């Protein structure tokens, strides 16, 4: 996983509560066996009209949304289906972080695993960030967002934060604990043999 330490980029504001993963990436794109290539389907039903043309009213179809690397979203971002295609699509589009007042649990975990930062930001700060035109610098070490000389704090789960800062390969890290897993399995074989 690519580490996330500090990032500066433009923001796209789509602040609406309960942005679910069906909306982020509709089911017809889940038949893929790849992780890549989902960016062009991100927010498909909002981004494209019935005839397949872009809807110019949608934030990702105009600047700065088109070249944004930060997405400002509403509370309970990423609720619903566990599809990891949601963070894959966001990252494939170019997003490195989602800034929102709260996240659904499964989406947040999926984001961390892919190097996409789910940053928890107070609604007032989010509104201020959306209203100002400047690029935003996200500093995961300092847990701050800086824009046009103003600074706002954000929160991030400690375990996810360290994984992002290190660019941790979690499977590799767990495999280093194999003796503990084997000991657990040996104990379970006698204590709960039916499992």
């Amino acid at each position, binding site marked *: 996983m690519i580490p996330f330490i500090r990032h500066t980029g433009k923001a796209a504001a789509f602040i609406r509560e309960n942005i679910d993963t069906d909306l982020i990436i509709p089911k017809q794109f889940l038949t893929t066996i790849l992780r890549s290539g989902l960016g062009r389907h991100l927010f498909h039903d909002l981004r494209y009209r019935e005839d397949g043309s872009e809807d110019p009213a949608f934030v990702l179809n105009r600047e700065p949304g088109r070249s944004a690397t930060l997405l400002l979203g509403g509370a309970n971002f990423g609720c619903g289906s*566990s599809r990891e295609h949601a963070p894959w699509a966001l990252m494939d589009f170019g997003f490195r972080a989602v800034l929102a007042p709260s996240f659904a649990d499964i989406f947040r975990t999926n984001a961390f695993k892919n190097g996409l930062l789910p940053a928890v930001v107070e609604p007032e700060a989010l509104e201020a960030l959306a209203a100002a035109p400047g690029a935003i610098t996200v500093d995961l070490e300092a847990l701050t967002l800086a824009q046009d000389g103003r600074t706002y704090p954000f929160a991030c789960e400690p375990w996810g934060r360290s994984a992002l800062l290190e660019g941790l390969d979690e499977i590799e890290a767990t495999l280093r604990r194999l003796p503990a897993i084997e000991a*657990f399995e040996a104990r379970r074989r006698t204590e709960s043999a039916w499992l």
Partner: protein
Amino acid sequence: MKTLYDKLWESHVVEELGDGTALLYIDRHLVHEVTSPQAFEGLRMAGRAVRRPGAALAVADHNVPTRQRASGIAGIQDPTSRLQVETLEANMAACPIPYIPLLDPRQGIVHIIGPEQGFTLPGSTVVCGDSHTSTHGAFGALAFGIGTSEVEHVLATQTLVQKRARNFRIRVDGALPRGTGAKDLILRIIGDIGMAGGTGFALEFAGEAVRGLGMEGRMTLCNMAIEAGARTGLVAPDATTFAYLAGRPMAPSGALWEEALRAWRALPSDPGAAFDREHRVDVSRLEPQVTWGTSPEQVAAITDRAPRPEEAATEEKGRRAESALAYMGIRPGQALQELAVDVVFIGSCTNGRLSDLREAAQVLRGRRAAPGVQVLVVPGSGLVKAQAEAEGLDRVFREAGCEWREPGCSMCLAMNDDRLLPGQRCASTSNRNFEGRQGRLGRTHLVSPAMAAAAAVRGRLADVREFL
């Protein structure tokens, strides 16, 4: 004094990792075609093996056709869908993970076949790359949905790094009135606590009304815990649980069964165990529920009217109601029973089990679906289908003008060709009424199987109590 969740968590900790997280051992892993291909690809790229293939069970369900199954995978029309199911089959053969092929009589939705096969057991941890894995919590198992990276992590290590959830008990008092069931109850609970009300919590459903539910009703309840934001729903195992499991193909037997029973009986929350949050519901006056909006929390009694956004409790709620009503094509204050339906969907991991089909058939027996209404009945598994046919339910459905299909997820998420056309209104026994969930611009009303059947007959959303 511990809760059921505490006991499940603590008995699976391999190692504490700090920051409120632990390495948790995973006993059971359900695998399906949509969320697993990238995980197997990841293992191959890293040269890693599947650590315990026997702890997994795989089946294709999300993406499979519910018609013209005879030619199996080769009969899947969409080439990318076909490739995905073929990829699952190839990955399973290489591991090898126990796999139920498309044409096997046991094929069905992961969350239906896990319990049906006795794969899901009390006191175990169950994961699957699907958010409705919470279903298995009905057995007193710690069950939760995961993403594909976590699927890969479980395959490689048989563990997951997890953050401990907080305890939330939902006490349900009273007896469910005629015409209501587990689906109405869970919709009401989500309406009460909101779709993020359970975020960060494990929800334990307790109380007299929950004890009174059979296993299938308990599964419906836990299935939709995720629609309240909770990855995990739980019901304490009891005599009902054990009676359901006894004799299932993958459940323990003989001396091992007795040993397991002793352990399972110690699982329920201790009297006086502390919960971080508690919510009480009295169901004695519960009415059949129906969602009117685009989130499961936007729910009302069938005798109600759609809300008026300006009367909402908060400005944000009013804005959301306004946009939901516009999407749904409903006027503020409109009586819900005025809404004409185009499609009725009976099935899914929420309501695709035998008792659900019996409930729908009871309403449809001797009646006919209203002209112009398409009714899809999709059993949750091949075994459910066979049992239903043995009871003659398929005949009841066919005589009522319904389509009797092959098992799969079908129109719950509309990944196959069972989907709504723009503007079509559907009474659905599934779990999500999100915008576009059942097809672009489709309009979904979540209801119980009995209510779906009533809507089919009336051609509008209807109060099932008038049909009983």
